[in-house]
């Protein structure tokens, strides 16, 4: 096999070493590749040549660059978008505070920050609200006419789409109070619906009921 006695062969060895090394190679590292004694100046010259060889490629993908700890081949910056698709970052999760804020807005809308704070018992981080607004999951639908005119927040259509809901009514009903001091009998629309249904039913001439 080849002897590393001429510059072309040395460049081939350098190229293989640089393309296979997971970390940048220092000049000292690279000198270790060769059994012969090589001047650092020679090595620098070879690296410059190698760099130019790659730059001269008609359709190039990589460049040889010098960084703090040595030399390395790296993909051209314009290719980074493509390469990043191989290992997409795992989507991060919202904090508990953000999730609770979102839940309150979803179930209690339209609500002000004050409402949320009252329910959660802690101050709402403005970043949380901004985060949810940037996601286009909540927006301001008005102001409550009280001193300070606080913004009223509600969930958006995007929120429903992203959670695969047709309407807020598809959100699971939550009546989970650990203890309810007393159960207030509020007339619910469901009751009204039932009532209307009952009327229709009667109208249809069913006198039996």
């Amino acid at each position, binding site marked *: 096999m080849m002897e590393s006695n001429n510059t072309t062969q040395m460049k081939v060895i350098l190229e293989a070493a640089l393309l296979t090394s997971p970390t940048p190679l220092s000049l000292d590292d690279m000198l270790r590749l060769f059994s012969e004694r090589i001047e650092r100046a020679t090595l620098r010259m070879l690296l410059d040549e190698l760099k130019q060889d790659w730059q001269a490629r008609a359709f190039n993908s990589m460049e040889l660059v010098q960084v703090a700890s040595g030399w390395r081949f790296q993909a051209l910056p314009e290719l*980074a978008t493509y390469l990043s698709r191989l*290992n997409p970052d795992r989507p991060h999760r*919202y904090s508990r505070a953000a999730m*609770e804020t979102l*839940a309150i807005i979803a179930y209690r809308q339209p609500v002000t920050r004050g409402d949320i704070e009252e*329910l959660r018992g802690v101050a709402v981080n403005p970043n949380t609200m901004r985060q949810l607004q940037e996601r286009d999951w909540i927006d301001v639908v008005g102001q409550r006419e009280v001193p300070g005119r606080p913004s009223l927040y509600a969930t958006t259509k995007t929120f429903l789409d992203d959670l695969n809901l047709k309407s*807020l009514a598809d959100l699971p009903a*939550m009546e989970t*109070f650990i203890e309810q001091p007393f159960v207030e009998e509020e007339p619910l629309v469901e009751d009204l619906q039932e009532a209307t249904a009952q009327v229709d039913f009667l109208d249809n001439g069913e006198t039996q009921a």
Partner: protein
Amino acid sequence: MIILATELKAYTEPRIHGEAITSLPHDLYIPPDALEVYLETFEGPLDLLLYLIRKHNLDILDIPMAELTRQYIGYVEKMQAIKLELAADYLLMSAMLIEIKSRMLLPKPTELESEDDPRAELVRRLMEYEAIKLAAQKLDELPQVGVDLMVANAYFEKIVEVQAAQVSMEDLMAAWQNVLKRASHFAHHKVGKAELSVREHMSQILRKLKAQNMMEFSALFDIEADGIPKLVVCFLAILELAREGLVKITQQAAFTPIYLTINQN
């Protein structure tokens, strides 16, 4: 240096008390003090047998039976203290050899078939083991990534594409449940589907009013498209908005249009 070379040689050619194992062990007897050597040099009794067969043309069946049995028992007695679990493999092999031998001593029925040869099982095992041993050597000779094969591993600047957090219905419910649990000591609510619909309509009406400033009451109802339940919900939403002071409902005179505006006071 010479000593080192000898030691290296001894590593490949098993030695006991400095003596190379050449004629040893004709009788398959391993002195207990040499056991360690055997355990290190050979990968087990099959390996030892193969070594004896291949290197020294041992006829494993040409072993004085009485001697082997006597040694076998002595062996067990002396071995109490040594690596018994490893030595057990050797003992098992000795027992197997004795069994083969004894079966061969028994008078055979005349219609004996060749596969009934008591040695057949041992031969099969030896052949299978030798095949694996050779395969292992070949595997070891294959180039290995990281040892004699270097794979490309150049650098690229990873673009961190912040992916939006995924929220599932379960996440949302869990969060809401937490809020309710904590809020339970100062409030009570009954949140049903219907109330949610009302609140959703409240948001929708506010959105519409925000966009148009003022809307006629009837424009908030789509009598053609919405069923009665939805119209009722919409009406409840308007009432709720008015109650919470979020909208102002005005009418110039009786029977004139009713207008809704966002409460600006």
